[in-house]
């Protein structure tokens, strides 16, 4: 009896037919596909949303000041007059200093890692460089504020002022009292920060040079430097420029490291020893204290400008690196 009852119960549970199972599987499959597709498109949506949100946020400032916003230096929260020229100038100058220092050093380090370094040492150094690239920028900022800026103030800046004091153009570039903090300090900190990025990307592209090319050059009697200069660099030009632009993108948008040491002064000084400001430092320093719609909106407009600049730089960088990848793939 028990057996019969059990049999009956089992029979009552609806066993899905083959067709039903297939339909359910197909539905689940489609659902999962649409879900992943939606998330991927969400990335595009995210970029769009960021641009739209920043644009809407900056509308009051753009409407009030118009194109003048880009061209004036005044930044006066009391009279509600704002212009972005000083932060834009500071952003460009600090990044330029950073790239002028980090690019040659980064390329030379990458050359060392791919051409000169003993094999057993390559991996440890490469890993060290990549770990250092991951150190948060606030660490560089606090080091810059407490260690680097006082050091520059006490030893390097007086020297610069003395040495270049009599040289016509350079004297105004290195003029003024040694504050410690300022545009030059921010540029130097940025250089230290982007160095690992440039090194690690250049190393990757240098390593992709076919050994045959280098060996033929060595076979002709080229020195290491000549091989690097005339074979490796021309072959990897696009990739190296891509890597440099990626580093530039970082330098332009870097916030915390700069905010600590730039001095936050809204004026364009001819001397790079003087305090200045950058777009990101202005936003970080003033946003929470900004009262009034126009002030907030001006800061968001600064953010929009920064985003536009970095988007262009990063897009170019990625495009160049993509070209390298395609060539390698082909």
């Amino acid at each position, binding site marked *: 009896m028990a057996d019969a009852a059990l049999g009956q119960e089992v029979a009552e549970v609806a066993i899905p037919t083959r067709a039903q199972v297939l339909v359910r599987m197909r539905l689940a499959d489609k659902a999962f596909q649409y879900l992943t597709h939606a*998330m991927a498109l969400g990335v*595009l949506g995210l970029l769009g949303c*960021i641009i739209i949100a920043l644009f809407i946020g900056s509308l009051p400032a753009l409407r009030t000041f118009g194109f003048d916003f880009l061209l004036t230096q005044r930044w006066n929260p009391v009279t509600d007059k704002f212009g972005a020229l000083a932060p834009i100038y500071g952003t460009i100058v600090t990044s330029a200093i950073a790239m002028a220092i980090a690019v040659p050093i*980064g390329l030379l380090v990458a050359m060392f890692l791919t051409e000169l370094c003993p094999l057993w040492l390559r991996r440890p150094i490469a890993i060290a460089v990549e770990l250092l690239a991951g150190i948060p920028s606030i660490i560089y900022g606090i080091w810059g504020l*407490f260690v680097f800026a006082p050091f520059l103030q006490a030893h390097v800046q007086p020297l610069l002022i003395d040495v270049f004091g009599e040289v016509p153009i350079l004297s105004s570039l290195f003029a003024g009292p040694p504050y410690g903090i300022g545009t030059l300090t921010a540029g130097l900190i940025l250089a230290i920060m982007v160095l690992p990025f440039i090194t690690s990307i250049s190393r990757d592209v240098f390593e992709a040079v076919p050994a045959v090319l280098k060996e033929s050059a060595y076979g002709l009697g080229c020195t290491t430097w000549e091989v690097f200069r005339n074979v490796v660099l021309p072959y990897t030009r696009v990739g190296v420029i891509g890597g440099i632009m990626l580093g530039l993108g970082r330098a*332009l948008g870097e*916030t915390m490291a700069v905010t600590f040491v730039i001095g936050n002064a809204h004026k364009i000084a001819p001397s790079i020893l003087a305090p200045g400001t950058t777009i990101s430092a202005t*936003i970080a320093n003033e946003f929470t204290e900004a009262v009034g719609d126009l002030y907030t909106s001006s800061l968001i407009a600064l953010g929009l400008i920064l985003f536009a600049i970095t988007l262009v730089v990063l897009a170019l960088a990625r495009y160049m690196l993509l070209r390298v990848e395609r060539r390698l793939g082909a």
Partner: protein
Amino acid sequence: MDISLYRRRRRRNWMAQFFSLAATLVGLGWLVLILAVLLWEGFGGVSSKVFTEMTPPPGSDGGLLNPILGSLIMTGLAVLIGTPVGILAGTYMAEYGRYARTTTVVRFINDILLSAPSIIVGLFIYEVMVAPMGHFSALAGAVALAVIVVPVVIRTTEDMLLLVPNPLREAAAALGMPRAYIIRHVAYRAAKAGIVTGVLLAIARISGETAPLLFTALNNQFWSTNLNAPMASLPAVIFQFALSPYAEWQKLAWTGALIITLAVLTLSIVARAVTASRRPS
């Protein structure tokens, strides 16, 4: 043979090699110097108080308990929000849409978002969350961090799924498995180590992010677990304390900086170890 030309070339080569070595020593030495100062200053302030007491008012002793807790809460929440989105989007790019035009575009945009300035993310979340809600909140901070997590996870998920050999998928398909099932039970399983690495790297990335938190989660002097209110975080506290004139605060800022750096380095090394152990040599 032109001896002078030969000598000149040799000399130039020596100089280039010397500068190359010097650049490496200076570059690495510089970075080591920063770490050394950080260890020196940071360990000077480490005590049990750091992990048991709240941030102090100016001029008195205290610890970093509330910012540590705040950082953990917001980082955790950001990973919870960002990881599923990133993994699903990466799945589309590597599986369903591997050859689709969308994928190329999404990959390009994602790579740009990967290195976009993080302060922009802070402004964006301020506009869409903080301003409409009318107040700063830990939730907004977590969402801002999640926006940074997503591109990192997408990138690694896609890369790792592309490394999974196709015969595995074909074998599963030959057994009659539906596509979604193959992805979830075959591809994910094969790429697990890589995807975990991506999540760890994302955590490392956001645990030091300051700029997106400044005007989303703001800061908080007190113990708070309320997601709808401002919350302290280690980076924000370091920022505030380091720029203050009080010696006690500056000391705590160094200690906080040390904690963050050690956390980030540990995460990156663990992430490396996870991939290294799974990758066949």
